[in-house]
């Protein structure tokens, strides 16, 4: 299969892409591209330690795995390394007295770009347990701010409710008994106050709020930036700066190891019929799927056997191979694209399709390694069908470049075949003949 030639299938929405990216909805009996599907998050997991993380935990840690770190330079995983370091004995004045026995220290290292925590002058640790990343000091400030505004919000809500009640007037009020004296209203009041106090905030922090005023004058840049010769290695790269927006990283010593971002296992469903087309397994270490209706399993796949030069003088024979995904013999027919299809505008080649049906042999996984000669079983036109092997057929089509077209030759046709839904029915007492539905995906082939 040549990697330069492309076989694209046109999805029901009009977008065309190779078959490997498409799904097949067997309820709508049509191809679906990733854009025709809606996504749902199934579960979160860490790509390094492959641990499943419940969604509440993920939310509280902002979608980060607390036990794994990623390199700020290349975003690969950091691994703990140990080193033997001699203990240093110092006397009272801080002077170096001598070296003691060796002790083990730990630091983090990236195995891809060899970045270590020592590069940012982070001291080595003596134990592997405990968090490697300190919570930034701004976190406490930020949560105080958020809680303060929440408190204000609750206060406002309570006041509004009070005003509403006062406007409506109360029966008891007209009797002369104040709202506050009644037991229920007291409880009501305390309830809402409790809700407001759910987050603690420091009054001092709130008092330190300063209104920020914009000014035209800015701090002048450091003089050394203009005079000192800078080395490229001293400054952090742009991708690593973008990864750490909170810290305004400038030099490479400002980079910090971050907790690994969690990945998501998602299930996809068809937007039209709302059936699930892709549902992965729960276990993060597993790459299997519970439901996996990829187009490769339902739609015959074309390959271009050999790349040939196509001219606009005469028809050239191009060999294509077709693989049958179904476990029964599949007769297929290639027909031209109907008039008015938008794909017709992009075609730059004319194609003469084989008029007759081609029968594809069934896919049989048991005979994968000992192919028998099957060509005698099928009545093949020797001009069209060249060879057969298991469930694959190689045949020829004649292609000619359209006059006045430039660039790669693009031909298009429709593959017509019948799809049988062979999943067993729920009620075994009603054996139904499996319905055959006509499927006609449109293909474009770039030669």
């Amino acid at each position: 299969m040549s990697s330069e030639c492309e076989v694209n299938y046109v999805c029901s929405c009009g977008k065309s892409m190779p078959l490997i990216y498409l799904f097949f909805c067997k309820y709508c009996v049509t191809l679906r591209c990733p854009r025709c599907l809606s996504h749902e998050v199934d579960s979160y997991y860490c790509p390094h330690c492959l641990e499943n993380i419940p969604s509440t935990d993920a939310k509280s840690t902002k979608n980060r795995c607390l036990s794994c770190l990623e390199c700020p330079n290349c975003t690969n995983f950091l691994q703990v390394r140990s080193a033997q370091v001699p203990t240093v004995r110092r006397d009272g004045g801080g002077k170096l007295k001598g070296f003691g026995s060796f002790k083990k220290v730990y630091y983090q290292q990236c195995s891809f770009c060899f970045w270590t925590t020592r590069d940012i002058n982070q001291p080595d640790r003596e134990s592997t347990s405990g968090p490697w990343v300190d919570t930034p000091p701004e976190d406490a400030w930020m949560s105080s701010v958020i809680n303060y505004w929440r408190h204000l919000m609750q206060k406002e809500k309570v006041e509004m409710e009070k005003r509403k009640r006062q406007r409506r007037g109360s029966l008891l009020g007209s009797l002369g008994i104040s709202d506050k004296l009644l037991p229920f209203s007291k409880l009501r009041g305390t309830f809402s106050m409790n809700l407001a106090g759910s987050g603690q905030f420091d009054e001092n922090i709130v008092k330190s709020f300063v209104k920020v005023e914009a000014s035209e004058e800015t701090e002048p840049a450091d003089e050394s930036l203009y005079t000192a010769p800078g080395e490229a290695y001293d400054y952090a790269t742009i991708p690593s700066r973008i990864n750490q927006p909170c810290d305004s990283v400038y030099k490479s010593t400002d980079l910090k190891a971050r907790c690994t971002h969690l990945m998501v296992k998602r299930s996809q469903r068809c937007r039209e019929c709302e059936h699930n087309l892709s549902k992965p397994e729960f276990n993060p270490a597993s790459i299997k799927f519970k439901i996996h209706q990829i187009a490769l399993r339902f739609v015959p796949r074309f390959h271009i056997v050999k790349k040939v030069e196509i001219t606009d003088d005469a028809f050239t024979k191009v060999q294509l191979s077709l693989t049958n995904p179904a476990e029964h013999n599949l007769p297929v027919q290639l027909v031209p694209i109907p008039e008015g299809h938008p794909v017709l505008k992009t075609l730059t080649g004319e194609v003469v399709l084989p008029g007759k049906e081609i029968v594809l042999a069934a896919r049989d996984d048991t005979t994968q390694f000992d192919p028998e000669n099957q060509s005698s079983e099928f009545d093949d036109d020797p001009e069209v069908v060249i060879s057969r092997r298991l469930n694959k057929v190689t045949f020829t089509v004649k292609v000619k470049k359209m006059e006045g077209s430039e660039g790669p030759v693009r031909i298009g046709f429709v593959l017509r075949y019948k799809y049988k839904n062979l999943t067993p029915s729920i009620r075994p007492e009603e054996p139904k003949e499996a319905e055959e539905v006509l499927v006609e995906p449109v293909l474009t082939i770039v030669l």
Partner: protein
Amino acid sequence: MNYDSLKIARGAVVCAEADLRGDVTVGTNTIIHPKVRIFAYGGPIVIGEGCLIEEQTVIINRGDLSDEELGKFLKETETRPPQARSGKNAPLRALQAQCSYVCGKAVGEAQNIGNYNFFEVGSHVQAMKIGSNNVFESKCKLGRKLTVGDGCVVSVFCALEKEDHLGDRTVVYGPNNQRRKQQDKPMPQTQQLEFLAKVLPNFHNLKKSNVAASPEPKG
């Protein structure tokens, strides 16, 4: 000047299956695994002490060899077993038959490789000057015009063909040969060196050492 003078210092472990041709000098505590090809074609090669040269490494002092000739030479020598050294002077004609391309010059430019370098499996080294404490990971390729400082790391499959100098403690990594500087030099592989020095002689025949002290780098 003896073309085929192999000087192995005492303490070096050089397997007999390693193919060393030409004027090659190996320092103490260096370990050369079998199936290593060290060809001093364009001039002598001096390898420092404590180096660890793993299997299928090619260290070649290329001289004036063109790319095609080099490719042909390497392909020929890939599977051909090295000739057993008789120790004393092999006749020059026999030598010419072994090493089918013979350097026309009496003395060529020396290729100096420093101490405590680690050449992982399959690395291809043509660089003329290499410092100490470097790590060259598997299948990396260093071109002839490259010079390497101390403490560098060239990552897996990185090819550095152009004329350049890798400063001290440079790390070359990634498919696009990205670079960065690291704080510490890579640690010398003392544990591996000790282990291999003990274990390799049990399983391989070794070439005998014929020089007492570690040699000085030439030129």
